[in-house]
Structure formats: structure tokens, C-alpha cells
């Protein structure tokens, strides 16, 4: 269906949901990575904003997995198909390469076994889109180095005792992990999300970007 056929009501709905880009600027880059009409699985989809945008803008056939029943209710209110599930249990229900994209936005750092789930995501999805807050961002380094305290920033706003982030990583660590586990990185987007508007970082990303998005897939052959 060409863009011109998108109805007025749909356009209005798209506008409503794309307001979320103000709060989650990284979503815009993720949406750009997805080919129209794809099957998308969002792991830890929250209230389904990203899925809804993909459904509306990319005519994607979307589904999500989420642990919170409150968040699932919000997804159902958007007309999305989601299921209650614990990501630490993996994706045993899904066949190999059964969706076009598996998305993990700001999720892997809260898992008990992020390595396991990343490989599961790469098994189930032809491609994966994984986004992470970068722990090696200069402000984090500064706070540790000069203040001697656990970093607290806009992307990592928690105290040491109440943070859900138990497996924080850096851009360098993540790229190394992909190399070691046979994951081919197809695209990288480095961002500074704490300032508005959100800007792409070209130089020294591991120092200057507070956020990174990777598009990757299992290496073939």
C-alpha cells in the first residue's frame, strides 16, 4: 500500500504516537532500520509505543513480550498482540529465523543472562536491533574517576541500590561480545540522547555517546 493511501485517521494516529520520539529519540533511528511489512518481535516491549509506531508507519506485523501485566493492558489498548513472558527464560516458543526483526531496546542490561537472550534473539530473528546505554560515556567515567561515586545520569538515573541495570555494558564490550559470539554487526548508530535534539556521534563514540543502537545478525557460513 503506497503512502498516499494512508488514511487521515491513520495519519492522526501516527502523529499521536510519534510524539513519543520526543521522549525516546532513539526510537526514530530504530524505526528507520525496519523494512516495511516486516514481522517484528519486541522483547520487553513495555507499553508498546515502538510496536505501535512500526505497525502504523511500516505496516509491520508486530508482537511483543512483556513481564508487567499493567504494561500488557496498555498494549492491548493499542490493539497490539503481546504476551506475558519472562525474557530470562529465553525464546523457546519461537522457531529459528521466524521473524524479520527482534528488537531489544534498553533491555539487555536488566537481564540475568543477557548473553543467552542476545543469542536467542539472533536465532529467532533474521536480524536483531539491540540498543544499550553506554556505560563508558564520559560523564559516567568522570563521576567514577573524579567523584568516586556510582554514575547517575539521564540515561542511567538510578541509585546503586535500586537500579534494575545489573549488566551494564559499553560500546567496546558489546562489539567485542558480538565478534566472539559470531554476530555480524550490520549497522551502528551512536547517539547523545541526554541533550535535545538528540545528536549522532561520529568521533570517539565509546567516550562521547551515551547510547548505541546495533543492527546485527548471526554470521553465516
Amino acid at each position, binding site marked *: 500500500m503506497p503512502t498516499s493511501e494512508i488514511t487521515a485517521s491513520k495519519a492522526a494516529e501516527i502523529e499521536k504516537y510519534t510524539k513519543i520520539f520526543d521522549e525516546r529519540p532513539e526510537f526514530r533511528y530504530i524505526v528507520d532500520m525496519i523494512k516495511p511489512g516486516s514481522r517484528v518481535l519486541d522483547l520487553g516491549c513495555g507499553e508498546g509505543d515502538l510496536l505501535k509506531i512500526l505497525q*502504523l508507519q511500516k*505496516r509491520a506485523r508486530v508482537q511483543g513480550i512483556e513481564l508487567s*501485566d499493567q504494561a500488557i*493492558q496498555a498494549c*492491548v489498548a493499542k490493539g*497490539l498482540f503481546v*504476551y*506475558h513472558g519472562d525474557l530470562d527464560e529465553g525464546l523457546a*516458543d*519461537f522457531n529459528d529465523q521466524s521473524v524479520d526483526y527482534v528488537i531489544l531496546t534498553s533491555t539487555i542490561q536488566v537481564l540475568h543472562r543477557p548473553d543467552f537472550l542476545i543469542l536467542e534473539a539472533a536465532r529467532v530473528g533474521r536480524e536483531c536491533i539491540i540498543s544499550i546505554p553506554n556505560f563508558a560515556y564520559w560523564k559516567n567515567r568522570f563521576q567514577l574517576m573524579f567523584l568516586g561515586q556510582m554514575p547517575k545520569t539521564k540515561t542511567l538515573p538510578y541509585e546503586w541500590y535500586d537500579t534494575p541495570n545489573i549488566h551494564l555494558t559499553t560500546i567496546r564490550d558489546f562489539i567485542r561480545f558480538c565478534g566472539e559470539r559470531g554476530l555480524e554487526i550490520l549497522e551502528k548508530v551512536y547517539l547523545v540522547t541526554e541533550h535535545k535534539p538528540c545528536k549522532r556521534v561520529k568521533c570517539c563514540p565509546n567516550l562521547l555517546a551515551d547510547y548505541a543502537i546495533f543492527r546485527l545478525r548471526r554470521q553465516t557460513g
Partner: protein
Amino acid sequence: MSSITEPGSVGIVETKYFTFAEPPNELQLESGKKLGPITLAYEMYGEMNEDKSNCILILHALSGDAHVAGKHHPDDRKPGWWDSMVGPGKAFDTTKYCVICSNVIGGCKGSTGPSSIDPATGKPYGLRFPIVTIADMVNAQKHLIDHLGIKQLFCVVGGSMGGMQALQWAVSYPDMVKLAIPIATTARLSAQAIAFNAVGRHAIMADPNFAGGDYYGKQIPSAGLRIARMIGHITYLSDKSMHRKFGRGLQDKTAPSYDFGTEFQVESYLNYQGDEFVKRFDANSYLYITKAMDYFDLSQPSGDLKKELSRVKAAFLVISFSSDWLFPPYMSKEIVTALRRNNVDVTYTEIQSDYGHDAFLLETDTLTNLIVNFLEYADQRDNGF
């Protein structure tokens, strides 16, 4: 005050009856036997639209009936069993949808069951009534839906045994079900649930008044049925909800009396539930309906649930409750997994609730929120939204 003026109520309703399967066109049962004629009791609220595409079939649980909402008389003490969910502006909005609820075969609420007259003998069937299954119940309802001229049900929905029927509908008649909402249910009854059913049946059959099921017109096996219901009620609650509801509270006394009377509040509750049930339910129906649940296993004949669900075309909303230990969330997950592997659109949620299995009758707000939205978006999905 007449209930007709109560906001959100369907008002005064009546049970209707549909009779079919007159010999020699009896209904073929799964067991190989035949049953006919068959009467189904049903109720229907709200208007059908022109192409009859707005019909919702509600399927009741073990002890339910066709009277799902509203009242039969203005001074009825209680409305229908799911009145909180069915009516104008409610989850199943009767200003938008035509809601149908039919009693199951084998029941005792106006449909043909063991207390009906066997045309062959002129006496109640009793245990000569054939064993019926969930699929038989659904096949009978299919006749009713055909009779009403409905080509496709907009939605089939039910909790517990009603959920089993909803699943069976989606499997038996895939082209006739657009949406399915099985709640607090399973694709196959567990050994534990069969065990509880068996104990209930033993209690009934061990009652001296049972008389091989031929107790009609005589003393009924009320003691046995009462015990069966008490056991049932334990399985419908959770440890937490029982604790909260009764704790160790004593019934109408401040100190224990050290005898075998009704000492604790929880005992009084079970007594009351047992007594009330005996007044309204037939012991033979209890035997037949629990037996139908026992035989329910959608993974048969292949043993592979995914394969057996492969013909399903409906979109699903599957709901379980965290504290339901009779039909625990893992059983719903099993359904969801099989559906998902067949690329069926399915939403699954495990609602955090302390009410146990009974939650499907009590978590009205959460269920309403989920169901309203799920039904609402069905049409948008059709348009590729």
C-alpha cells in the same frame, strides 16, 4: 426498584429454548452413542446487526447456566452469573453486540441432561444418559448458532470449562470464530483436576440416596452433592484469598466450643455453598459435566497440541490468573505456545490476582479493560491497520 432502571443492566430477560436432533437425526456423540431430541436453553441480549456479524457467544463453567446477565423477575435476589461483564457499557456491551449464552447438554438448567425424560422409557435418563464431552457440547451449540442464522461468531468467550468450550469452538469450527477469549482454562485437564472431580463424583455416588442415579421424585443425594461442591469451592479459592476472607476466625462465637459443630468461618462458608448448590443443581449433571471436563484434551488424537490447533483461524486473547492453582498460568501458556507456533495472532496475559480460579468472575475491571480493547481493535486489524 425494578432492575430495568439499573444502569448497565440488560434488564429483565427470559430464557429461550431450542429443540433439535429429533430422531432419526440424533446428534452423534464423541463416544459413538447418539442423543436426541436435544433442547438447549439459551438467553440472548442486544440486537443482531444486518449480517449477524456482531454476535458474541458466552460459554459457562461447570455450574453455570444460560442466565448470564440481567434478572428474570424484578425481585430476583441476584442477577445472572456474569452480570458484571454483560450489559450496556460493560465489557460485552449489549448496545454494540448481540450476546448469546447457552446452557450445555448434560446440564440441568433447561437443556437436555440426565434429569430430562428419556423418550425411550418415559422416565428421567439418570445414568442411562450418554457420556457427553466438551466437543459434544460445542457441536450442540453449533446447531443453535446455525438456527439463529449466524455465519460467524464475532467472539467466543468463557472461563474455566467455558474456556474449554471457547477453545473447542475455535478448533471444531475455525471458520465460524473470529475472536476467542479463553480465560483461566486449559487445553487438557490436569491429573490434579481430574482427581478433585473424581472425589466429588465418589461423594455423590456413595450417598445412600443416589440409588444408581434413579433418585428423581425421591430423596436426592444431597449429602454427596454438598461435599462435591465444598471440594470444588476449595479449588476455586487460593490460600491467600481464604486467609484474607476467613483467616482462623470463629463462626458466631468468641471462644472455641471444642466439638464437631461449625467452628470456623471457613467451615460455615463451605456449608453455605454446599447447601445453596444442592437447591439448584442436579447431582447426575454434576457427574456428567465433570466427566466431560476430565475427557477434555485438545492435543488428541495426535498428542501434539500444536498440530491439533493448526486449523485455528481466530485471533486469541488468552488470560490466566497468578494465584489460580486449579488451572495455573502454565496451562494457558501451553495454549499460547501452540497457537503462536501456528502463527495465530494471540495476546496472553497473566493477571496478578489473589482470588485463585474464581478471579475470572471477580477481576471485573482488569478483564473489562482487556476485553473492550481486544474487541474494539478487531475491525481495525481487518483493515490492515
